[in-house]
C-alpha cells in the first residue's frame, strides 16, 4: 500500500505551486483545515484561487482569510463576498473594495453541487436557484417540467485541504457531526487531496467499511494534527 502519511503539515503542502485552485472547506468555524492553511501560509504560494463558503471571518483564527490577508489569493469563489453585517470588515472586504482581489459569488447550494459535479464527472446541472435574480443574468436558462432553471458548471480544484475526525492508512475518512459540511465534496473534487486528522491515524482495516464518508482512493496525503497544533 502506498504510504500516504506525511510527518508535518509543512511537508504535506510543500509542493503546492503558485496559481493553482485550492478547495478550502469548513462552515461556521467547524471542519476548517486550519493547520494545513497555516502551513500553506508559511509556504507562501501566490496567485491562488480559493473556493470556500466565505472569504474569511473577523475572528483571529487561521482560515482562508489568513491567506487573503497575506496577498496569496488572486481570486475567491464563495457564497459570501460581503459580510452579513456592514460592521464586520474582514481583510477580504477591504481588499475587494480596493480591487486587490477578484471574487465570484455563488449561492451555497450551487457551490456544493458544482463541487459534486466536478467529482462526479458530469458536465454541469440545471438548478432553479437564482432564477429571476441578477446572479442568473447571462446564464443559459431552460424550462424543465414547467419550471425555469439555470445551467451551472462543475467546479474542480487542484488541491483540497481537508479536516477530518478519523482516518486509516488507506486514506478512508470519517467526519464527526457538522464537521462534515464541504469536506467530502472538496476531498472528491480535487486532483490532490491533503487531509489533517484529529484522531490517531489507524491501520487499514480498523475502520468499519460501512461507515466511511470518503473512500481512501480520493485521498493522497494524511497528517495527524500534533498536540500543539490548531484544534479549534
Amino acid at each position, binding site marked *: 500500500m502506498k504510504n500516504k502519511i506525511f510527518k508535518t503539515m509543512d511537508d504535506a503542502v510543500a509542493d503546492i505551486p503558485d496559481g493553482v485552485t485550492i478547495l478550502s472547506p469548513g462552515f461556521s468555524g467547524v471542519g476548517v483545515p486550519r493547520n494545513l492553511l497555516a502551513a500553506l501560509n508559511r509556504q507562501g504560494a501566490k496567485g491562488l484561487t480559493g473556493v470556500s463558503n466565505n472569504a474569511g471571518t473577523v475572528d483571529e483564527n487561521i482560515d482562508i482569510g489568513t491567506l487573503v490577508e497575506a496577498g496569496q489569493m488572486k481570486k475567491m469563489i464563495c457564497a459570501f463576498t460581503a459580510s452579513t453585517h456592514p460592521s464586520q470588515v474582514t481583510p477580504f472586504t477591504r481588499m475587494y473594495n480596493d480591487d486587490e482581489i477578484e471574487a465570484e459569488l455563488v449561492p451555497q447550494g450551487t457551490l456544493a453541487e458544482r463541487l459534486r459535479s466536478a467529482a462526479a464527472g458530469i458536465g454541469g446541472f440545471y438548478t432553479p436557484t437564482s432564477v429571476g435574480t441578477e446572479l442568473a443574468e447571462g446564464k443559459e436558462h431552460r424550462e424543465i417540467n414547467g419550471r425555469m432553471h439555470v445551467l451551472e458548471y462543475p467546479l474542480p480544484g487542484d488541491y483540497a485541504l481537508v479536516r477530518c475526525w478519523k482516518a486509516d492508512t488507506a486514506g478512508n475518512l470519517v467526519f464527526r457531526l*457538522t464537521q462534515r459540511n464541504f469536506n467530502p465534496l472538496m476531498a472528491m473534487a480535487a486532483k490532490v487531496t491533503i487531509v489533517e486528522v484529529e484522531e490517531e491515524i489507524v491501520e487499514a482495516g480498523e475502520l468499519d467499511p460501512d461507515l466511511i464518508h470518503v473512500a481512501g482512493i480520493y485521498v493522497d496525503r494524511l497528517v495527524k494534527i500534533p498536540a500543539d497544533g490548531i484544534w479549534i
Partner: protein
Amino acid sequence: MAEKVKLERQAMCDRLAMEFQDGWIVNLGVGMPTLCSNYSDSSREIINHAENGVIGYGPLAKEGEEDRHLVNAGGQKVTPLPGMACVHHADSFMMIRGGMIDVTVMGAYEVAENGDFANWRIPSRKGGGIGGAMDLAAGAKRVFIAMEHTTRDGGPKLLNKCTLPITAPGVVKMLVTDLGLFEITPEGFMLVEHAPGWSPAEIQELTEAKLIISDGLTEFRFRA
C-alpha cells in the same frame, strides 16, 4: 408624545412559530429567525434543518455542554436530539431544493406585494452575502419573513416593487413585522393581525404598498 410601542422580536418570531405544523421540517435563517426556536409547544414535533447538514438538532447548548463539532447555520453550538442526522453540504442542499423543507424563515431588507424579497445585497456595498438564501427561497415549500416594518430612517420596507436586487421572485407567503402579521395574497399584502394599539390606518401610513385588511382582522396573538 412618546413613541408607540411596537412588537418585540421574540413576539414576532413566536407568532411565525405558531404557524409551524406537527412534523414540519423547519430551516431558520441566521439572526432574528433563530428566535423561532424559543417558542415551545409540546403538542407538536418540529424537526430543525440547518444548511450545514444537520437535521433534527436540539436547543442551544448551555455553557460547558458545547460540542465543538456541532453548530447550527449561525455557528451557535447546539445540542443533539435522538434521531439527529448529519450529511454533507451537497446532500443538505439536495434536501432544500428537493422540497423536503416545509418552511424557511429569513430576514429581509425589503418585501414586495408580489412576494419578491431582497436580503443579500445593498448596491452601495460591493459584493453580497447569499449563503444558502437563494437555494432556500427557491426550494422550500414556504418562505416566511421576519423583519422590522420600516428602515432605520423610517422608510417603508413593504413595497410595491423591490428596489434592491431580489433573492427570489414571488415566494414569500407570510411576513411578520413589529407592527403585525401579513399574508401575501395574489392581490397583495393582507394585514391579518395588528400590533396592540396600532390601527390599520396607522400601519398603512408606514407602508408603501396598499394593504388589504383581512375580514377577520384581529389583534396580534402572543400565544396560540
